[in-house]
């Protein structure tokens, strides 16, 4: 039964995607149909959660095989995957609802919902995959659907470039991950997660390759540019893909395979997570574009999750993934409403938002992100901090917390407290947009994580990771103090300055875009031109040279045939002709020469007779 729920929850969105494509492009009901499918899938996943929260289910079917090896597909249903499944489908459902209103004026409705459905189905596929082959299949499909979704407004060259760079950067990670998976399969003889779990850790090289894939998918350093550039896509897409689900897939994956990774890999991952957390925070601090701030914030939070999952406890990271998905999606959707209403994305120009329909969700989302008490974010963040041992992971986590607080305060200040010259807030957002926002805002409260706002070992966490008991400890109070003090300091700072000194020039992603172009695409283009040159100027002329030698040889042979072989014949005939001509002298017609020669011949004859 549980199996059926799981299968339904990932097949329904795909089916919906397929069915929607049969409608006309500007159909009005495409969105509603897609939402229906996704909603049913969400319900199915919730039912699944009720069934399989404690008792895992594992099913496996053979997929393909060759002589010596076999690869299978299956479903691995346990607490983590069920939680993730509900999360993905919930957020996808909210985004679908939201899109019905947000995207209602778009021309290519069917295309949008088909792509959304493809993405949702693929993402859910990753969640429930039990074998690494299968997971890779859906992983790549997620890359592909993100390309489709980011590039939705395909007439805009910036959008197109963002989409291609997203796909390509993901593909780099994906292919490295592919090598890692293949190596694991060869090394361990199987790719099924349950079977791998009992076999100890994988090789460090394979682990690093998998980590590369995770880094690309979750936009860690050095792959973070695709995420900030992906903000060119529609805001609901950003909410779904870049806040909650796709980028979280990397974190989800590392949580899944945590026990398989050797400690060196985990340490490197933690390091990368902390660097990314800091870089993302700095980027958010320097940006003025609303979506860009949120994108950098996501990058920073993902780094935080990675750090927590590898240096701390995977369960804590999963918890934070969960809460982050909710509050980040909330912030994105609210941002979408703001952008829709004001047609403006620069926080300096948006002006003061007064409508409580917007301010309340913003404040709740921000509070959860900062980690104020009574929010879910508070619980998950502190759980991570508590799980980190002392040392550099802890300090970087605190630094990330600090940065988070500062940039979030800055954002809130600009949006809510600072007035600007052009407030053109038009219209009320309609129900379709506000319902998901309301749901997600409610999700920022502590209740969804644990009954008690201060007990970290609430019902959710206990199910995720039964090893540790989390109580608010020393670190929690330190963090709280940090948060409050930095928030107030930031508030007063940003009254006068719009940004922090020294953090600037991030508009081009810390110059990484240019760097990648110079390091990556330009050498690649030159290399391809070298290859073309080799083909056109080296190999082809070599072939032509052989052909020319052939022709030259043929000409030479022809010459010999004409002048030497034939020439011999001609020589003989010439001799004959010449001698004939000379003999013709004897027939000149002169009588006396006739007589002379006749007489001479006679004399010679007589002499010959006599001698």
């Amino acid at each position, binding site marked *: 039964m549980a199996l059926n729920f799981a299968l339904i929850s990932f097949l329904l969105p795909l089916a919906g995607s397929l069915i929607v494509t049969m409608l006309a492009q500007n159909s009005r009901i495409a969105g509603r149909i897609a939402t229906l499918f996704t909603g049913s899938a969400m319900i199915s996943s919730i039912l699944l959660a009720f069934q399989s929260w404690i008792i895992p289910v594992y099913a496996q079917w053979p997929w393909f095989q060759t002589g010596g090896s076999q690869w299978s597909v299956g479903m691995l249903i346990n607490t983590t995957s069920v939680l993730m499944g509900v999360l993905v489908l919930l957020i996808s459902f909210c985004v679908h609802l939201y899109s019905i209103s947000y995207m209602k004026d778009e021309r290519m409705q069917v295309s949008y919902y088909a792509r959304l459905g493809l993405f949702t189905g693929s993402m859910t596929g990753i969640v429930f995959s039990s074998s690494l082959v299968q997971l890779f299949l859906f992983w790549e499909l997620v890359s592909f659907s993100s390309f489709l979704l980011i590039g939705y407004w395909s007439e805009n060259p910036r959008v197109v470039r963002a989409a291609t760079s997203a796909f390509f950067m993901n593909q780099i990670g994906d292919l490295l991950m592919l090598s890692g998976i293949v190596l694991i399969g060869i090394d361990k003889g199987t790719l099924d997660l349950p079977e791998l779990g009992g076999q100890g850790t994988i090789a460090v090289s394979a682990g690093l390759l998998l980590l590369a894939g995770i880094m690309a998918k979750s936009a860690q350093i050095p792959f973070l540019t695709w995420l900030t550039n992906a903000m060119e896509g529609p805001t609901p897409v950003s909410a779904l893909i870049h806040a909650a689900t796709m980028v979280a897939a990397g974190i989800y994956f590392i949580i899944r395979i945590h026990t398989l990774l050797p400690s060196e890999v985990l340490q490197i991952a933690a390091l990368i997570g902390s660097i990314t957390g800091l870089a993302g925070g700095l980027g958010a601090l320097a940006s003025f574009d609303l979506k860009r701030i949120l994108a950098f914030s996501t990058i920073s939070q993902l780094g935080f999750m990675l750090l927590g999952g590898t240096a701390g406890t995977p369960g804590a990271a999963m918890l934070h993934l969960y809460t982050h998905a909710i509050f980040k999606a909330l912030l994105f959707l609210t941002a979408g409403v703001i952008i829709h209403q004001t047609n403006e994305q620069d926080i300096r120009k948006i002006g003061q938002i007064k409508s409580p329909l917007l301010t309340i969700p913003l404040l709740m989302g921000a509070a959860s992100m900062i980690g104020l008490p009574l929010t879910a974010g508070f619980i998950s963040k502190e759980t991570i901090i508590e799980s980190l041992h002392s040392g550099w992971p802890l300090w970087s986590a605190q630094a990330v917390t600090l940065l988070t607080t500062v940039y979030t305060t800055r954002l809130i200040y600009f949006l809510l407290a600072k007035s600007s010259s052009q407030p053109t807030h038009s219209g009320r957002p309609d129900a379709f947009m506000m319902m998901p926002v309301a749901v997600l805002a409610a999700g920022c409260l502590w209740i969804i994580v644990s009954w008690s706002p201060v007990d970290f070992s609430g019902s959710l966490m206990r199910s995720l990771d039964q090893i540790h008991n989390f109580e608010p400890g020393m670190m929690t109070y330190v963090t709280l103090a940090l948060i409050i003090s930095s928030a107030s300091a930031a508030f007063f700072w940003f009254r006068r300055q719009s940004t922090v000194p020294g953090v600037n020039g991030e508009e081009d992603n810390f110059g990484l875009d240019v760097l990648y172009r110079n390091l990556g695409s330009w050498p690649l283009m030159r290399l391809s031109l070298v290859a073309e040159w080799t083909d056109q100027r080296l190999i082809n002329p070599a072939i032509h040279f052989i052909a020319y030698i052939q022709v030259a040889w043929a000409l030479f042979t022809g010459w010999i045939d004409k002048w030497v072989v034939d020439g011999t014949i001609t020589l003989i005939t010439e001799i004959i002709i010449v001698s004939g001509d000379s003999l*013709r002298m004897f*027939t*000149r*017609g*002169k*009588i*006396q020469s006739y*007589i*002379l020669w006749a*007489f001479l011949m006679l004399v010679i004859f007589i002499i010959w007779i006599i001698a």
Partner: protein
Amino acid sequence: MSPDALLYFAAWIFCVGICLVIVKRNTLLMLVGTELMLNAANVNLVYFNSRSSLPDGAMFAVFVIVVAVCEAAVGLAIMMRVYHFYQTSLPDQISELRERT
């Protein structure tokens, strides 16, 4: 005088006759040369007749003289006709008996 001197003499006359025939640029003189050659043969015949008991040599010589006379007459007649036809007595110009190119 050695008996061979006569033979040498006949040979010498014969050569002169040949040279006349070959070299001279007058058809009549070619006939003269022919006569000389006949006479040289005659000298030979007479000499060998004198050395032999048989009268064959002398008889032959008489025949030769007669033939020479007839031949001279005919030859002259031919030369007259040739001269009449070709309007020249230069042998070089009587050269129609040759290869037509």
